[in-house]
């Protein structure tokens, strides 16, 4: 066991730091951490793209990707080092996490060389932003229950239906799309997987306002949208197994970041706020609660370090990664709630001028319910851990062996 950089890691860190120092500004103590893809103003999008381009030109984009795809074949450990170093600088919010975390790896795994050549370089350089068109109004957790259809017409497919909760659709060039190409077979067997140009005629994008007033996700309507057959990934009817590649990468990319926030800022917060005329941190109940949160947060961080060690030994990312988001999102929501309680009546203010800590906890409290749902709800993640990690039986499935068109979709009329 050794937590220090190896000589190679130290050299890598120094190289990363040198480049960052020459190309970005150090973050001051009062500079907010960039928010993940929620403020999609033209200005923010342009800034994020410019930063991504700069990194790509210098070979610092998607560093863990193989060299042949424009990455630098960096180890998972080098990636952590890069992220640690980058976090010390002022950088724009990330609008590429879906593209880089999920779409890119799926295209690399299932795309033809032509498809890869067409999409990967511009995805990597940030020139084209990507979204994930999976969820539908009646297919969320039960993703394979989706109803958007694609029908073959010559060399093209004609798509009709509706997607929902599509993060970033309004700024995207491309989307990954799962659709039903055969309703007469069982639900998983009738799906196919496409890459769709978001500017295609017949696509209508309507932003949805979230509970925190941000417009991060959208409804996307498809009316006779034509997709060339050469934008299909893998065989017709094999869409589910391609989607699983995406979902596996999603769990990995969401889960691995969760332990990073240490919640130790809660200690500082409780030092600065009064409870019964004394700093709240002197109150035993407050201390114990914060100790609980810090303990869990450190547990997540230490677990992600263990995972990383396993990855760098060449072991594949497993379903264990589901734990990061499951534990982390609830933990952060509870901690935010607790911080708001500590602020007393001011806890219910969202005014960043007067609310302690610039209303950061309030903002988090409003965004965390979304994090608990996106990429799999708590219940789905628990099922994954119970079934795939612990080997407990799967839930009974009422739709097992039933042709998709015959599956009930609501209470009998």
């Amino acid at each position: 066991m050794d937590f220090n950089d190896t000589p190679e890691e130290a050299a890598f860190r120094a190289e990363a730091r040198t480049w960052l120092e020459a190309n970005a500004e150090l973050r001051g103590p009062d500079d907010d951490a960039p928010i993940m893809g929620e403020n999609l103003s033209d200005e923010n999008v342009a800034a994020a793209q410019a930063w991504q381009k700069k990194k790509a030109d210098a070979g610092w984009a998607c560093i863990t990707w193989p060299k042949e795809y424009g990455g630098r074949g960096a180890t998972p450990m080098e990636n952590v080092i890069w992220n640690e170093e980058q976090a010390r600088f002022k950088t724009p919010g990330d609008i590429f996490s879906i593209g880089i975390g999920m779409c890119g790896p799926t295209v690399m795994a299932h795309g033809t060389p032509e498809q890869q050549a067409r999409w990967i370089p511009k995805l990597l350089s940030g020139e084209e932003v990507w979204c994930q068109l999976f969820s539908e109004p009646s297919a969320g957790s039960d993703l394979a229950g989706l109803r958007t259809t694609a029908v073959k017409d010559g060399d093209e497919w004609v798509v009709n239906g509706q997607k929902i909760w599509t993060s970033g659709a309004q700024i995207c060039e491309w989307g990954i799309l799962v659709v039903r190409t055969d309703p007469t077979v069982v639900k998983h067997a009738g799906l196919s997987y496409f890459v769709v140009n978001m500017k295609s005629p017949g696509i209508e994008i309507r932003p949805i306002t979230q509970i925190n007033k941000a417009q991060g996700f959208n409804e996307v309507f498809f009316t006779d949208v034509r997709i060339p057959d050469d934008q299909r990934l893998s065989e017709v009817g094999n869409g589910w197994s391609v989607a699983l590649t995406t979902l596996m990468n999603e769990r990995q990319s969401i889960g691995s970041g969760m332990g990073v926030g240490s919640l130790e800022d809660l200690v500082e917060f409780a030092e600065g706020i009064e409870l019964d005329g004394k700093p709240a941190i002197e109150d035993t109940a407050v201390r114990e609660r914060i100790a609980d949160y810090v303990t869990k947060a450190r547990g997540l961080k230490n677990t992600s370090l263990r995972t990383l060690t396993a990855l760098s030994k060449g072991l594949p990312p497993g379903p264990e990664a589901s734990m990061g988001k499951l534990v982390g999102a609830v933990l952060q929501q509870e901690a935010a709630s607790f911080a708001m309680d500590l602020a007393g009546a001011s806890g219910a203010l969202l005014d960043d001028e007067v609310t302690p800590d610039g209303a950061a906890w309030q903002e988090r409290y409003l965004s965390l319910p979304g994090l608990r749902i996106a990429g799999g709800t708590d219940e789905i993640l628990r099922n994954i851990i119970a079934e795939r990690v612990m080997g407990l039986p799967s839930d009974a499935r009422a739709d097992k062996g039933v042709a998709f068109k015959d599956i009930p979709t609501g209470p009998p009329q």
Partner: protein
Amino acid sequence: MNFDFSDEQKLLQQTARDYLEANSPLTTCREILEGDQPYATDLWKGAAEMGWQGAVVPEQYGGAEFGYLELAMIAFEVGRALAPIPFGPSVYVATEAILRFGSDAQKGAWLPKLADGSAIGTFAFTEKPGQNAVAGIEASVSGGALSGTKLPVADGDVANVAIVAATEGGALGLYVVDLDGAGVTREGLDSFDMSRTQAKLAFDGAAAEKLAGADEAGIAKLLDVAAVLQAFEQVGAAERALEITREFILGRYAFGKPIAANQAIKHRMADLWCKVELARSNAYYAAWALSTDDPELATAAAIARISACEAFEDTTVEMIEFHGGVGYTWEYDCHLFYRRAKLLSSQLGTPKYWKNLLIDRLV
């Protein structure tokens, strides 16, 4: 960075597991729990032959001089087996205290015996019910003679040497006391976990040798070390409890299917799995800090301690619940784990104590 045990360390762990599976099945724990023997003497001797008690004792004193990471792996296996031996108090505390603070003479006198298992050590800190606080210690030493009462003392009825916390001229320190010497009275107490005995020790002018350097900061450090090692024992036991529970719920059918097929159970199992994994990761990190004597040890030990106590206790609570009626019987093993969880979280300071300590260290 490399956050994993080495192949050699894992091999040592496997050897320990094999040995304990052969020599300390849960029936061994039960025999001690139900019988009159205070601990499994053969197991204790066998462990000593493998060098466990002397895992961090230098060869010069007859130890195996493996190192802390190795001892942590052994502790994990001792926990998995619920081994009914006075391991923790003797190895994590008494041996460690003498190693850390003892003079050459004290080391020469005690370490060889502790390392080869011919002597058992223990830690005498608390004096009465309630949170163990340094402020509450009334035992005192004057002119090398110790007076006072310690209660409870783990393995106090079988130990040969105790590391006793006492004041001298108002200053707190640790003292080595030969429990077979004059001025020591022992009284066995009913232990919540009868597979691990406890006692009340009364000292009336017992000969006490000061451990130089074991001041309040030294004691805190000693407790940090012990907490990390004990965390491994707790996580090992929690892991085993979860495995046993998993087997049971897969085999027990109700309403025409295994009870494990119910989401209410699956989800709680998933939560327990997360708790155990988080505790394991925290223990690993603390072990690294211990093995390198990193300044992070202070916070890492508290964090490892808190998550280990909670993971072990929560797992055993659900273990009984998921076993249903049989889980509440003497016959089934659930209560062995349930008892051990509470015992281990009561020794070395409760989670509540460590939570406050953690915040002190973070502020």
